[in-house]
């Protein structure tokens, strides 16, 4: 499978990147749906004449994006080969050195540049010491080779995944496409109009537990939002990020430093695989009693989720098996896995339960 043709944009600074984004997303605004049909052969022409009705589907597709941002490329490149994205421009961030690095802040907390590789996070003594859950989560992503390329920003922005979506163009033609791309039906929730593609990043549940915030830069300036506000909970438009915006930075607050942390990941193989279910737990204890605790789960919903009510349930108590089980029930209830990946939804939900219990107990020890 070849890569679609594109023009490569290589900004030297974040502000130049934002300029590029503004410029080419403006182009995009002019070239909405009708304009693209004039591109003829590729993006529209692929639908051979006998399935034209797919085009006139009433379902609101995510708008065509003529520009894609590349950092490590581990997510984007395979998807481009599968013709999930056929952008005209690729904005390559790798030349922006200011966006790379782990910078402990004078007033506590740490700022992690979006281009920092997962390998660097995994290896950082500072992170391991103060935010162990992130260190552990980063170390489970894919394989060492991919972690050398993949970035924390990329992991946060990771496209949602589904067996009916992450397939080649030819394959998707065979199933009649789906809501997330080119079609109007969902194969995992028949009859539904919502996309259930699962968010499958490993670090976001850990970051959620750490109350992380992210910095987003756009034409309107810089804004900083809590990470949990970034995700929509929808499989198709899964993040709140305008096409002309960029995630530049992750902040971990001082207040969540030095929590005990554990990340547990369900996967069939010990390497390479995306999570089929993932649980991050952070916990602070004092005199044998829990002062604060949070649980985040991933790969079982269209967004990474913080499990509600965990802190209330655990605070002030000494952890025992029964309490851990109660927490794991909460987590299992938060999980809504569907048949978006290998292993059955029932099993994956069950494993959220088992892994949460284990992670909570491990964090306590």
């Amino acid at each position, binding site marked *: 499978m070849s890569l679609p043709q594109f023009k490569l944009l290589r900004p030297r600074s974040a502000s130049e990147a934002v300029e590029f984004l503004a410029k080419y997303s403006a182009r995009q605004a002019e070239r909405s749906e009708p304009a693209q049909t004039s591109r003829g052969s590729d993006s529209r022409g692929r639908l051979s004449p006998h399935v034209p009705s797919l085009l006139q589907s009433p379902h609101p597709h995510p708008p065509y994006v003529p520009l894609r941002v590349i950092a490590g490329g581990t997510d984007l490149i395979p998807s481009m080969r599968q013709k999930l994205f056929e952008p005209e421009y690729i904005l390559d961030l790798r030349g922006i050195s200011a966006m790379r690095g782990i910078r402990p802040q004078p007033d506590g907390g740490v700022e992690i540049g979006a281009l920092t590789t997962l390998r660097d996070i995994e290896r950082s003594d500072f992170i391991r010491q103060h935010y162990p859950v992130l260190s552990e989560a980063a170390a489970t992503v894919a394989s060492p080779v991919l972690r050398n390329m993949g970035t924390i920003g990329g992991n946060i922005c990771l496209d949602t995944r589904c067996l009916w979506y992450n397939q080649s163009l030819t394959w998707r033609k*065979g199933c*009649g496409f789906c809501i997330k791309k080119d079609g109007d039906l969902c194969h995992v929730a028949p009859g539904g109009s919502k996309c259930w593609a699962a968010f499958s990043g490993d670090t976001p549940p850990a970051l959620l537990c750490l109350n992380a915030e992210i910095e987003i830069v756009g034409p309107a300036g810089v804004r900083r939002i809590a990470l949990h506000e970034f995700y929509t909970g929808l499989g198709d438009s899964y993040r709140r990020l305008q096409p002309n915006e960029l995630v530049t930075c992750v902040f971990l607050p001082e207040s969540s430093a030095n929590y005990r942390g554990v990340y547990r990941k369900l996967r069939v193989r010990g390497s390479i695989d995306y999570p089929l279910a993932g649980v991050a737990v952070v916990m602070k204890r004092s005199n044998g009693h829990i002062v604060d605790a949070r649980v985040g789960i991933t790969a079982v919903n269209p967004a990474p989720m913080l499990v509600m009510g965990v802190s209330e349930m655990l605070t002030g108590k000494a952890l025992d098996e029964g309490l851990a089980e109660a927490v794991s029930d909460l987590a299992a209830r938060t999980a809504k896995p569907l048949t978006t990946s290998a292993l059955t939804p029932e099993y994956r939900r069950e494993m959220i339960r088992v892994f949460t219990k284990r992670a909570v107990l491990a964090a306590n020890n």
Partner: protein
Amino acid sequence: MSNDFSIIGKPTAMVDAAEKTTGAGKYTDDLGLPGMLIGKILHAPYPHARIRQIDTSRAERLEGVVAVAVGGDAPNPYGILPVGHDEHALALDKVRYVGDNVACVVAASEAIAEKALELIDVDYEVLPAYFDPEESMKAETDLIHENKPHNLEKDYHHCFGDPDAGFAEADQVLEARFISNEVTHAAMEPHSTLASFELDPHTGKLGRLTVWSSTQVPYYLQHKLSLVLEMPMQQIRVIKPLVGGGFGGKSEVIPLEIIAAIAARKAKAPVKITYTREEVFWAHRGRPRTIIDLKTGVKKDGRITAVKARVVQDGGAYCSYGVVTILYSGALLGALYDIPNIQYDGYRVLTNKPACGAMRGHGTVNVRFAFESQLDELAAKIGMDPAEIRQRNLLQPPCITVNGLRVQSYGLPECIEKTVERSGWKQRKGKLGKGRGLGIACSHYVSGAANSIIRSDMPHSTVNIKIDRDGGVVVYTGASEIGQGSDTMTAQIAAETLGCSLSRVRVIAADTDLTPIDIGSYSSRVTFMAGNATLRAAVEVKKQIAAAAAKKMGCEVEELVFRDDEVKRARVGAGDSPAQGQPAQNPRGPNSRGPLFPQGSSSPPLVPSSSQHAEQASVSGRVEGQILRGSLQQKRKDEGLKDWMTFEEAVVAAIDFHGTLTGTGSYAPPQEARGGKHKGAGVGPSPAYSYSAQVAEVSVDEETGEVTVHKVWAAHDCGRALNPVSVEGQIIGSVWMGMGQALTEEMVWKDGMLMNPGLLEYRSPSSIESPAVEPIIVESIDPEGPFGAKECSEGSLAATIPAIANAIYDAVGVRLHESPFTPERVLAALRAKKSAKSLNLTEGVDPTAPERFREHGGVLLFKGKGPERHALDPARRASPAAVEGAD
């Protein structure tokens, strides 16, 4: 038998190792020709549809597109088996699986070709499709192939001995259904073919065709190309460059190999096609999903009295090797243990999925999983140790089994003994604590089929050796190196026989213009058959060298020893090792029988009579003077009689004497090894069988169902290990691949769509899951194998799956009847055993005893009705009733 060898039996680096590890070696996709174009294939989006019309005009008009080939460009059918010519390179009237080949675009680049694929308009009439083999067998209408009623490719019904009497005699009888889900080879190198026509100098039209292809079977490819293109075979040259693994996936003609040639003919330019990984999955030819209904009876003393197996294979849309697979499944019930009564009913069924074919352990693996699992259960029933019950059922070779298989060398007893000993079986079994256990299983495989696909008495392998004045030995063999070590084995045997160093030997392999015929690298035949042919060719050349050397040295040829690049007179009676006294000319030892020296002489004379050659000698005059470098050698030459010669001197003497120095050897399996007379008896017989026993140590997480394999002790009887490091590699690779099938690998289907056509979702184990494997080489020295060698690359695989299954049983007491043992299946079985809250994985089907295939195996993508299909979706456009039936 002498063990004193200078080359074989020593760990030897593969002759192509440097090329491969440095990246200097060229695989097919690395090749290019001036003016070469790229071909891309259009695949069918429907599992079963009639093609009403194909319009390629829009694609042809695209800038950069040179030609578009369709089925009509080469309508002749072909197939690997003479009985199964049911494939067309590009579909003529129907497509039969999602991914079937419809058209091929030839363009200046891959991107243009891909773009052009979207411009080909195909008008399909969608037909009801069949995905479940047991449903497919009931089909009356919309057959996949019109000449195959009930979509039944082939069925066989064999009965040996008296199974009913056997079961009546048994003290314990067990009957169960086992299911093995579909797996594929996942070889590292995707298939790739480059085809180029030469211009005929007289007519200016397209003349000879050269095809470079990643294939295990260059000669079959040459044959099928000739059929489809309607060209004489001698006008077609097939060259096999380096191949990055085959495992059976390249052991037949894959559509792209023919399509590339058709496209090159149409485009009048060289065309290369390389499959994407997805296309590799569609080309498939892997191990079929198999339902095994197995019944076994044993006496209290552990003796097996009878076995009855009904096997249904989900063969996919074309015959491929299917007839052979279903026969192997039955035939290889025999020749491992002594089973007096066997009943076998095998059904190879067509379904609307990619064709299954040969895969490492062809035909035997799934049935072996069922058999060894059931034997384990029977051992528990009669209160016998699982290792012991296997020892109670050994064959007494040499013998011929009840189903007509001749067994000579038989290392199984030693294999069992050694794995039991090394694994600490007796001390540790049952004492490993909660959730951890040991399991044992055995397996075997053929060392090449005694009957080739195309039945004939012609040799299966032929090898030519040429030695020139420089003392370089060139071996021409059709055997295909696919990473298994074929070239290294050939060089080793030639060097050992000729007593020269390995670096002198150059192997020219698998080029139909240069090398004599060899039917290919499959069914583990190369070491045994091409190895024997090499040995014979080398012996023939050596005779000629020996005759000349004996003359120069004034001795009898029998006195000569060829070793370490020297030819010496043996000091008879000097107390040397037997090999010195009885040189390696006859490596097969005094026990040798069989076809190499049919007269049965234990010490055959090297030449009939050396004196009569004296008169014919000296045609080449002083030619050696031109080749011998340096005055020292010239001086030595003039010294008169010598007591030793270098290999080069001996070679020059022989060329001086005979004029040329070449030898030919070939191998055809002996008549005695070719099996019985019943229908289907041709598959299963082999000149020799390899044997394997394995013990696996696993632990099971009872909360998650995850299985971890900690260690596997794998003993394999390979006859003689010509290259021990290579044998160990094959054993480890087999265990690893078997473990993949046992635990993680599974092709998952929905409505004929392969849900995991990539190496991310089709989960072969990574290095993290790889257990410690302790390979144990057992050498039974086969009387007919080259230096006693047999198969070593396939037999071990089949034991791994049941060894792991039996270990899981030992660890947590659940018997798994369906592979792979994914965590969800294991957990479901554990829950069922404990009557705990059940995990509904399987549409209400008991996970411990599946009754039928679920469409997606345990990876249940839908329960109940399935999704509302799109209006244009194939399932909906077809008649609803038929589709529901097929679901």
